[in-house]
């Protein structure tokens, strides 16, 4: 097995506007199983960062435990990273984000890490609308411990052991919309054409952006009886709508007929254009978003794409009115402003 990649890259590999080539966003060689959906998701993150001209040293990667949580080793090798305790990624991300709000946070978790052991953490990060890109690599099983059903496994779905799952599954996207996330999307590791713009949209979003990525486990859950296999997902996938992500710096080149598209301006000025096919699927409306999800589920379809987005919801820092500057830039003078100020505060409280 190869643990290193050859040193050569394509001789005409292009650089992005920040001067980096795709190689600058690579990490170590993956030690996951060959064909793992997580590797594709990893590469979608790399591609999104490359296309958005992200500076690798301005990124923080945080993860919990599990196959998915290994992946931060495989992308952005020159960024900051923290591999935390099982299910505790949101706490670590919250702490880091509180300390330095200027960095880009990518939290990677899996269905076990999120929907089982970390459910409590997940819920609270959502309701606080932490400015975090929360990517859940969802394969419906515990791959690292030989493929037991996870809490996102659909009822009746059977993995390699062949025993159908008797329990109801948790729909992480519905839960996220319910609990206050301001950007909720679902992607499929086998469709980078959709997944990369989803991640880019999430990164442009200010607040908690949750992406549930259906990411098949080739070893334990890619059977014909599983609802999270490459084949099943491809057969049952339904996109909310086609969309274009137009980053702030980029000129809008596409022309949209009036009334056929919905424009969502993100916090940083980027724009998401949704090509509306069906007006009942309004992704800025919470109720309609949940309805669409349920309706497609009834039909046995898996809804993907941007499911819900609301750029207006305040993120944690705005809610708690914290300082605009990263804590490491605060000087003694900032932190100990002197007796006069203290006096003023005290008198205001009397």
């Amino acid at each position, binding site marked *: 097995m190869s643990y290193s*990649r*050859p040193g050569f890259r394509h001789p005409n590999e292009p650089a992005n506007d920040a001067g980096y080539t795709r190689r600058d966003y690579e990490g170590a060689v993956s030690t996951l199983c060959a064909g793992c959906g997580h590797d594709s998701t990893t590469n979608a993150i790399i591609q999104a960062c490359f296309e958005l001209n992200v500076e690798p040293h301005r990124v923080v990667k945080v993860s919990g435990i599990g196959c998915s949580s290994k992946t931060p080793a495989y992308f952005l090798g020159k960024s900051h990273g923290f591999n935390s305790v099982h299910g505790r990624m949101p706490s670590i991300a919250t702490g880091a984000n509180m300390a330095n709000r200027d960095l880009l946070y990518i939290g990677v978790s899996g269905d076990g890490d999120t929907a089982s052991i970390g459910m409590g953490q997940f819920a609270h990060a959502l309701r606080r609308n932490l400015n975090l890109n929360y990517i859940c690599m969802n394969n419906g099983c515990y791959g690292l411990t030989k493929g037991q059903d996870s809490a996102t496994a659909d009822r009746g779905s059977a993995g390699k052991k062949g025993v159908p799952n008797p329990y109801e599954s948790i729909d992480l996207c519905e839960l996220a919309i319910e609990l206050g996330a301001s950007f909720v999307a679902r992607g499929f590791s086998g469709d980078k054409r959709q997944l990369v713009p989803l991640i880019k949209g999430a990164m442009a979003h200010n607040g908690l952006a949750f992406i549930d990525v259906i990411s098949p486990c080739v070893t334990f859950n*890619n059977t014909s009886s599983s609802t999270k296999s490459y084949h099943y997902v491809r057969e049952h996938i339904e996109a909310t709508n086609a969309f274009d992500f137009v980053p702030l710096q980029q000129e809008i080149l596409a022309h949209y007929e009036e009334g056929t598209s919905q424009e969502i301006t993100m916090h940083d000025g980027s724009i998401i254009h949704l090509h509306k096919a069906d007006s009942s699927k309004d992704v800025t409306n919470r109720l309609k978003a949940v309805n669409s999800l349920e309706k497609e589920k009834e039909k046995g379809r898996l809804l993907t794409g941007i499911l819900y987005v609301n750029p207006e919801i305040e993120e944690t820092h705005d809610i708690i009115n914290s300082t605009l500057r990263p804590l490491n830039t605060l000087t003694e003078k900032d932190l100990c402003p002197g007796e006069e100020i203290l006096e003023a505060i005290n008198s205001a409280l009397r």
Partner: protein
Amino acid sequence: MKPTDIKDPEYFHKVIDCQFACPAHTPVPEYIRLISQGRYDEAYEINWQSNVFPGILGRICDRPCEPACRRTRVEETPVAICRLKRVAADNKSSAADFTPEVPGQKNGKKTALIGGGPASLTVARDLLLLGYEIDLYDDQSKAGGFVRTQVPSFRLPEKVLDEEINRILDMGVNTFFNTYINDIGEIIDKGYDAIFIGTGAPRGRDLPDLPGRNEGDESIFIGIEWLAAVLYRHVTSVPEKVIVLGGGNTAMDCCRTARRLGGEDVKVFVRSPRKDMKASPWEIEDAEEEGIPVIDNHSPLEFVIKDGKLAGVNFDRMSATYDSNGKRTLVSTGEEPLFVPCDLVLLAVGQQNALPWISADSGIEMSDRGLPAVDLTTHQSSVANIFFGGDAAFGPQNVITAVAHGHQAAISIDLFCRGKDLDDREPPSTSLTGQKLDMHELLYDSGISDDKRSAVPTMDRVKSLHDRLLEVELGYGRKTGRKEAMRCLNCDMQTVFDYSTCIECDACVDVCPVSCINFIENGEEDDLRSRLSAPADNRSQPLYVSDLLPTDRVMVKDENVCLHCGLCAERCPTSSWEMMKFTYNSAQAGKK
């Protein structure tokens, strides 16, 4: 695009750039791998089968394989293929110093070979193994032709030459040395079943119309004739100042030889700009390293004679202009001529065919350019049983091309003697063998070396300039040879794709270090090339296109910079990608 037909033997052959570029199609990666494993005897034998003269070619080959090497497309320098061939020759055991088995029972057919150079010797080897009787005629006292008389010993020692030439002669060639054929009729009358003519391009071009040429004749020589005279020790010294005219490899051999015979001030003058010089870049470098200036854009105007003796050469300074089609014209800059004093001039301004002994009544058709009318594939002339090969057939080329001609001519002669159709030739023999050892192991070392090309150690310059018989290059030792061999990308290990088992998980796309794999909607070639994830503008390299996949897409792989690292196969969960060794061996005489 239509799905790529990988059953076409030429598809994967083309992916093995070095082997494809080699006129004899020597299986280069295969023997380089053997060298990396220390299996020099086997490496030598593969070469011997294909190019007949591994020790000789490992020193003086024109190396068309090296500019073709895939490595030049991902880094600066190719694998030192030629010098690795020499490693195999230098390190083979005495067991590999073999004489192959020649059938005791002759087949009753007699073939005459005229000229004893590489083309004829190749024909001899191929046909002797089939039981033919071979008569070889040459006007020199030993076989070898051009490689013996014109390649100086400091590039190719006589010992190496003798070993590989004698191996063929010892297989039972009837040799007639010191025999100049005055008329082809003499040979035709002897009633041979077939005649092969491989007499090379033995006439060096002169500059007869330049003023002073006749008066200075005592000090002006034709380069190739002068080199032969040095070999036979008719010339043993040169005066101090020597000018060599010409920009090809013969010019480089002349100047370096002159330097070894006492020439202190040796200069090479070339009419054209340096980049248009015919000499191999490494030969020019070698000359310059020996303190010989190579001066371009100087065209000789006259040989200056003083007191009845050559005093120097006047040069016109030239500059090159190119028209919109890239066609070059050399024009004088109009400056004053430059006088360069010298005591000796060597002319290395080209070679020509010379077939005056082929009379019109022989029935062999000749073109206006003095070349015989020869079929490009069969090498047959207008007389059914007379064949041509080497420089004699299509004008001056190189040794490895002559060897390739020899193989083809031998096939034709064999078919002809057996009364078969010369155009119904045996296709190459090919095979595709899986390389999977287990889940994560391949049968070959798929790691990619980042090492730069190793320099070949050379003899001390002062020492080598004092003895023209001392070989300048010492060749790689075993250790450096292995290091250099590990730079080979194993392009014969093909990435073979099975669309029917692919689940489109993108693992191969994600892991490929050079981004050459794509899963996209099909289109015409131009359209596809414009949509691939990495620039795909090298149209000399094919696109590998699969059948339609379940998502209505196709797999498209740009072969251009594939490193053959095997990661796609290693990361493929369904073994839809497999690394398979493709062997391609050109047919040789006697197969059909």
